[in-house]
C-alpha cells in the first residue's frame, strides 16, 4: 500500500470518529451548547483542555524551534505551562463559582457596566480571531503535505469537519471530540520520539534519554550535542543567554497570556463543582506535560541526528556527498522545506554557522564559502518517523495527529467567539428578552459565521501568521488576565478603573508590537527595525505583554482609588465568588 493511502486511511478514520461523536453529542439547550451541560468529569475536561490548548504550533513547530534555539527557547516550555498554575489558583475556580457562560459575562457583571462588557468582548474577539488564523493555516499545511490536496481544499475540508461537530454539538460536541483528538495527537507525538530515544540513548523514555548517555560516543547526549554544534560555529545548545530581562518578560507574557486566553478559561466552566475546577487544572497540565516534556527531547535528538546525517564521520571530517543524501532529505527537498545550494561547487553538503565571524577562518581553511543547507524548523516533527526509519503507518499517525492538534484548538476558539457574540452581544447587550430557542439559533448562526470568517482568513492569510500568535498572547496578557484577577482579588477596583486599565494594556501592547512588526502587520510599515539593539530596554515585541499587564494593573488601581468604590451588591458578588459554597444553583440564571 502506498504512503498516500496509509495517510488517507488514518486521517479518514479519525474524521469518522469525530463525526460519530458529533452525531452522538448534539446540544439540546444553551447550557449544553455553552458549557456542555456543566457535567464534564475533571479528568475528561483536563484531556479536552490539553487538546484545546495544544495547537498546530505546539505539535508541529515547537520541537523544531527548540532544536534550533536550544536553552534560549525554554521560554516556550515554561511560558506555555506555567500559566496553568495561575489559572488554577487565581482564576478558574472563582469563575466556575460565578457560574455563567462566558468571560465577558464575568467582566460585565463584576464591573457593572456595558462598557466593560463590550471592551471584554472586543478583546476576546481580537485575541481569538488572530489565534484561529494560525490553526486554519496549520490544518491546510498538514492536508497539503500528507494528502496531496491543495492548501485551499485542505482548509475547506477542515472547516467542514469543525462545522459538523461545533455547530450542532456546541461545547458538548467539542469536548468529546477534543478528548479523541488528544488521544490521537499524543500517540502520534510519542511513538517516533520513543524510537529515536532508543536509537540514540538506549532509554525508551525520551525525557530521561535526553539527560542520558549517547550510546555511540559514550558521553552524555547534551555534551555530545554541544560539541558537534560548536564545532560548526553554532552557539552551544545549552549555552546561557545574555539578555535575561527579555527572557524573563517573554516567559511571563506567555504565562499570563495563557491564563488569560478565553477559550481555555471557558473549558473550566464545564466541570460540576468548584473543587473540580482546581483538580481539572492539574490534570490539564499532566496531559500537556506528556507532550511538553517530550518536545525538548525530540528537539535535541533531532538536532544531533541532523548533524550526524550531514557529517557521518563527525563535523571535523568531510560532509556527505549530495548524491549520497538519505531518502528523507530528498522527500522534504521536494516540498521546499529543505534547500541545498552548492556554493563552493564540491558536490558536498556543508552546513555551518556562516554568520559567526570567529568561525570564518576555519571555514575558509576548509574551502567552505557559505552555509549550503537550510532546513525549515517545522520538518523536525513531521519528518521524525522517516529520520528514525519507522514504518509507514507512523507517518499516517503523524498526519492525523497534526490535523487533530489544529482542529481541536480551532473548535475551542470558534466556540469562544460565537458564545461572546450570541450570549454577550445579542442576549445581554442587544435583546435581553430573547427566548432560549432563539438564543440557541443565534449561537449556531454565530458559530457558522465564525467558521466562515476563519476559513476566509485561512485562505487569505495576512502574511504574518507567526507574528499574530505573539499578538494574541500579548493582548490576552495585557487585557483580560489583569481585569479578571482584579475582579476577584480586589473589592475596590471599579468599572472606570477596569475599563481604563484594559484599554491602556491593550493599546500599549498593540502599539509596541506594531512599531516593530508593521502597523496592523502591513509589510513595510514598521517604524523601527525589529532588531535586539533597537528594542526599548532590550524588550522584544513578543515579550511586551507582561509590561502591558503591569500598566493595566497600575492604571486600573490608580483610577479606582481616585473614583468611587463599587456598590455594595458588587462587593457582595466578590465575596460570593471567593467561596465555593452554593455554586450549584448559580448556574441556572
Amino acid at each position, binding site marked *: 500500500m502506498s504512503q498516500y493511502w496509509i495517510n488517507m486511511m488514518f486521517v479518514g478514520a479519525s474524521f469518522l470518529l469525530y463525526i460519530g461523536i458529533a452525531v452522538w453529542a448534539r446540544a439540546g439547550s444553551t447550557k449544553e451548547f455553552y458549557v456542555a451541560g456543566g457535567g464534564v468529569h475533571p479528568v475528561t475536561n483536563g484531556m479536552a483542555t490539553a487538546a484545546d490548548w495544544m495547537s498546530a504550533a505546539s505539535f508541529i513547530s515547537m520541537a523544531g524551534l527548540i532544536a534550533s534555539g536550544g*536553552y534560549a527557547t*525554554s521560554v516556550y*516550555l*515554561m511560558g506555555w*505551562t*506555567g500559566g*496553568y*498554575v495561575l489559572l*488554577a*489558583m*487565581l482564576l478558574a475556580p472563582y469563575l466556575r463559582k460565578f457560574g455563567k457562560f462566558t468571560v465577558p459575562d464575568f467582566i460585565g457583571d463584576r464591573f457593572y457596566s456595558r462598557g466593560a462588557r463590550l471592551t471584554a468582548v472586543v478583546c476576546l474577539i481580537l485575541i481569538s480571531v488572530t489565534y484561529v488564523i494560525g490553526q486554519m493555516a496549520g490544518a491546510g499545511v498538514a492536508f497539503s503535505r500528507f494528502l496531496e490536496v491543495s492548501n485551499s481544499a485542505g482548509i475547506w475540508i477542515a472547516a467542514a469537519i469543525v462545522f459538523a461537530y461545533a455547530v450542532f454539538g456546541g461545547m458538548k460536541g467539542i469536548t468529546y471530540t477534543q478528548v479523541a483528538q488528544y488521544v490521537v495527537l499524543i500517540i502520534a507525538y510519542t511513538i517516533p520520539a520513543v524510537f529515536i530515544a532508543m536509537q540514540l540513548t538506549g532509554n525508551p523514555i525520551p*525525557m530521561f534519554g*535526553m*539527560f*542520558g548517555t549517547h550510546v555511540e560516543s559514550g*558521553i*552524555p*547526549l*547534551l*555534551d*555530545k550535542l*554541544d560539541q558537534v554544534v560548536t564545532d560548526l560555529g553554532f552557539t552551544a545548545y*545549552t549555552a*546561557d543567554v545574555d539578555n*535575561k530581562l527579555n*527572557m*524573563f518578560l517573554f*516567559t*511571563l507574557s506567555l504565562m499570563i497570556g495563557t491564563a488569560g486566553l478565553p477559550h481555555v478559561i471557558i473549558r473550566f466552566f464545564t466541570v460540576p*463543582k*468548584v*473543587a473540580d475546577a*482546581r*483538580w481539572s*487544572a*492539574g490534570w490539564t*497540565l*499532566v496531559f500537556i*506535560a506528556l507532550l*511538553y*516534556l517530550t518536545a*525538548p527531547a525530540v528537539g535535541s535528538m533531532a538536532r544531533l541526528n541532523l548533524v550526524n546525517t550531514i557529517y557521518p564521520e563527525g563535523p571535523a571530517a568531510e560532509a556527505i556527498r549530495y548524491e549520497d543524501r538519505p531518502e528523507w532529505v530528498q522527500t522534504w527537498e521536494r516540498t521546499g522545506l529543505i534547500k541545498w545550494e552548492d556554493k563552493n561547487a564540491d558536490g558536498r553538503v556543508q552546513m555551518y554557522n556562516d554568520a559567526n565571524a570567529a568561525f570564518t577562518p576555519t571555514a575558509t581553511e576548509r574551502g567552505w564559502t557559505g552555509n549550503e543547507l537550510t532546513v525549515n524548523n517545522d520538518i523536525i516533527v513531521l519528518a521524525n518517523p522517516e529520520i528514525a526509519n519507522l514504518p509507514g503507518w507512523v507517518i499516517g499517525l503523524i498526519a492525523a495527529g497534526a490535523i487533530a492538534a489544529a482542529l481541536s484548538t480551532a473548535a475551542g476558539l470558534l466556540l469562544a467567539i460565537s458564545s461572546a457574540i450570541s450570549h454577550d452581544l445579542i442576549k445581554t447587550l442587544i435583546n435581553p428578552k430573547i427566548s432560549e430557542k432563539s438564543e440557541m439559533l443565534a449561537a449556531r448562526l454565530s458559530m457558522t459565521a465564525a467558521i466562515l470568517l476563519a476559513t476566509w482568513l485561512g485562505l487569505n492569510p495576512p502574511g504574518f501568521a507567526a507574528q499574530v500568535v505573539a499578538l494574541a498572547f500579548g493582548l490576552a496578557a495585557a487585557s483580560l488576565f489583569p481585569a479578571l484577577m482584579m475582579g476577584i*482579588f480586589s473589592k475596590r477596583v471599579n468599572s472606570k478603573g477596569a475599563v481604563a486599565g484594559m484599554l491602556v494594556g491593550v493599546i500599549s501592547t498593540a502599539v509596541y508590537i506594531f512599531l516593530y512588526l508593521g502597523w496592523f502587520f502591513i509589510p513595510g510599515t514598521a517604524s523601527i527595525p525589529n532588531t535586539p539593539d533597537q528594542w526599548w530596554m532590550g524588550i522584544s515585541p513578543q515579550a511586551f505583554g507582561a509590561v502591558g499587564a503591569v500598566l493595566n494593573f497600575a492604571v486600573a488601581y490608580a483610577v479606582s482609588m481616585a473614583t468611587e468604590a463599587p456598590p455594595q451588591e458588587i462587593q457582595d458578588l466578590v*465575596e460570593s465568588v*471567593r*467561596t*465555593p*459554597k*452554593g*455554586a*450549584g444553583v448559580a448556574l441556572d440564571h
Partner: protein
Amino acid sequence: MADNDKENAAAYWKANVRLITWSLVVWALVSYGFGILLRPLVSGIPVGGTDLGFWFAQQGSIITFILIIFHYAWRLNKLDKEFGVEE
C-alpha cells in the same frame, strides 16, 4: 450568625491567599529563579551533560508546576471543609 459567617469567610480567604502566595513563591523560584535568573548560581551542579538550571528550564519547572497545582487543590479542598464552605 451573619457576622460569624462574614468573619469565617474572611478567615478562609486569608488562608487561601497565604497558600496562593507560598505556591507562587515556589512557582517563581523554579522557573524565573533556577531556570533563568539564578542559573549561573546553580550551574556548578551537573545534571546529565549540562547543569541544574538547564534542567529546571526544560523539565524541572514543568514537573514542579504539576506538583504545585495538585498540592494547592488538595490543601484548599481540605480548607473548604475546615471552614465549612465546601459545596
